[in-house]
């Protein structure tokens, strides 16, 4: 089987355009609080969810908008939700980390790791209520160290639940490099619980798609869970306005804020340890450099890659279509918001 690349590309373009419109709204101050975007994860989301059917469950983490866009949740009502409008998807009560669409059996949670038990629960219900139904559980590499997620791997195997675990591995959990706090390997971890695990390049939609096909087929056949580890890039920092990314964007201002206390700490008496302290400052600098770097230096944009898989003409057309769809949704949302104000 081969994927329909135009369809996949279109989903990715829709997601990207949607995320970018959220970014604009957030920067304008129209969306409160944290805002974690899924920019960089488009290929994973599109590649996996291309296999989803009506009635399949969707358990999401704090980067929940891309899968919801892919599953066809009404875009206007999602934007209205972020804007805190009572006409929003959740009446303004959920916001960007708690998006729920009962019609799509899709739920998200801001508690890292909780999308695993939730997905297992959706899969359990499918086992009773929906012949061949599956559930998708999305989470990050940081979440893969959360106990409730690990024990869910076991539960899903023990109960042969039709769930597909998708780890979007951007190698960061906020400012912590996952490789520095994660022992062993995540695919081996998943396999050790008794399920198949696939490691794919999450910026290449076709690789994700193929792995997901195997995982979903297995689940629909009643053979139990699978795990997909998809490497990707965090292109926008942890969240919008990420202070460490800002060091790159406004180097003077941010450095003025960050540096003085560091210098004080560097020189705090007793000075005995000054040499090693310089090393510690270096570490801070390196983390900031890498974090910012991912945004500005990355060349692993999944959209460019997917765009290369289809004719240029098609790409332009799909980009336009996606732009239009998002622009319309945005306009409708803002108009309604206006009317309400």
């Amino acid at each position, binding site marked *: 089987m081969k994927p329909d690349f135009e369809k996949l590309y279109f989903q990715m373009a829709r997601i990207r355009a949607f995320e970018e419109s959220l970014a604009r709204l957030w920067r304008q101050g129209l969306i409160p609080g944290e805002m974690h975007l899924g920019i960089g994860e488009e290929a994973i989301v599109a590649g996996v969810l291309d296999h989803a059917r009506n009635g399949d469950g969707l358990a999401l983490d704090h980067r929940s908008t891309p899968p919801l866009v892919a599953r066809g949740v009404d875009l206007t009502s999602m934007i209205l939700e972020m804007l805190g409008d009572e006409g929003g998807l959740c009446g303004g*009560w*959920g916001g960007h980390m708690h998006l729920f669409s*009962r019609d799509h059996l899709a*739920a998200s949670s801001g508690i890292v790791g909780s999308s695993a038990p*939730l997905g297992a*629960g*959706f899969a359990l219900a499918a086992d009773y209520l929906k012949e061949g139904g599956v559930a998708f559980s999305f989470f990050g590499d940081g979440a893969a160290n959360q106990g*409730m997620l690990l*024990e869910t791997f076991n539960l899903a195997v023990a*109960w042969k639940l039709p769930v597909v675990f998708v780890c979007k591995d951007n190698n960061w959990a906020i400012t912590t490099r996952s490789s520095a706090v994660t022992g062993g390997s995540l695919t081996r971890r998943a396999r050790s619980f008794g399920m198949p695990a696939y490691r794919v390049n999450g910026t290449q939609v076709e690789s994700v798609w193929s792995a997901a096909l195997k995982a979903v087929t297995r689940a629909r056949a009643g053979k139990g869970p699978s795990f997909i580890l998809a490497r990707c890039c965090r292109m926008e920092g942890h969240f919008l306005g990420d202070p460490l990314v800002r060091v790159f964007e406004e180097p003077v201002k941010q450095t003025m804020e960050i540096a003085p206390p560091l210098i004080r700490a560097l020189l705090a008496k007793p000075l005995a340890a000054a040499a090693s302290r310089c090393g510690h400052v270096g570490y801070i600098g390196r983390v900031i450099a890498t974090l910012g770097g991912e945004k500005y230096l990355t060349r692993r944009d999944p959209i460019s890659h997917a765009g290369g898989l289809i004719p240029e003409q098609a790409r332009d057309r799909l980009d336009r279509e996606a732009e239009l769809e998002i622009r319309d949704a945005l306009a409708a949302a803002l108009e309604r918001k206006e009317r309400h104000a």
Partner: protein
Amino acid sequence: MHEMTFAEAIDAALERAMADDERVITFGEDVTMLRRNLYVRFGPRRVRQAPISESAFLGAGVGAAMAGLRPVVEIMLVDFIAVAFDALLNEASKVKAFSGGKWNVPLVVRAACGGGYGDGGQHEQCLWGLLSGMPGIAVVVPSNPPDAAGLMLSAIQSDDPVVFLEHKLLSDYWLDYLGGASRKSVSFDVPDSAARGKVDVPPVVVQIGEARVVSPGTDLSILSLGVGVHRSLEAREMLLKEGLNAEVVDLRTVTPLDIKIVTESAKKTGRVLVVDEDYIGFGLSGEVAAVLGEAGVKCGFARVCTESVIPFARHLEDEALPNTRRITGAAHHLCES
């Protein structure tokens, strides 16, 4: 009406609900044995044994409930909810609000609670106050077989999460397992009227949120629940002989609290004594005081609760949990001041 033990009453209600509604399933550690009667009838798909992974399977219970099942998830002893607390605090109790009222979680969490048999401080807690400290869930604590059956039915029928707590001193099998009741030489202060009783078949639903005046009285109101109700009734007898006529109220539901019955009783007697096996601080007894205050009822107030970690030694434990000596003492003190 059938004569049933407390435990039989709960399982009869659950069995009835499972027979009536295919969506009702139950899972948890050792349930194939703990609920072996249900297992024989309904088999391993509807009575599922789980690994020792409370956050995974309670969290899965939330998801399953959202997706259309009506799971009754067993957490064995309520003390163990600590390892799965997120599923209640941040998931089950919040879905309805987060979804703008569009999605609900018809989940029952069933757990045994309470002490009086010498298992020590990690296995004998009540925790109903703590569990009530978040909006969005109900917590019920029956004190006799018909209420146990009726509240279990209500819990399963509820469209929102309910924690159902079963006191171990009332459930013979828990006492057998954990108290080591196979030994003739150990004894427990089990209130007889509570451990067995007549239950309608099918059981009559008891609404969540409805307290009950068990014994009317005039001098003070003793508000309690679970085993505390029986300690209070015993204390009532002693107080009667000493010239005090106490009203005993069985709260039955911790949250939502039956504010009407609580305030009416307090207004009538002018004195409220809360007998609560849970920890004294920041829980049910405080909430009672607050709703009385909010209702403008200016009455005497006292409480007999558990004030420390529950000690292991039976004689220390008996002193730590509410007992008739402490209840009557507090009642006299309250009526004198």
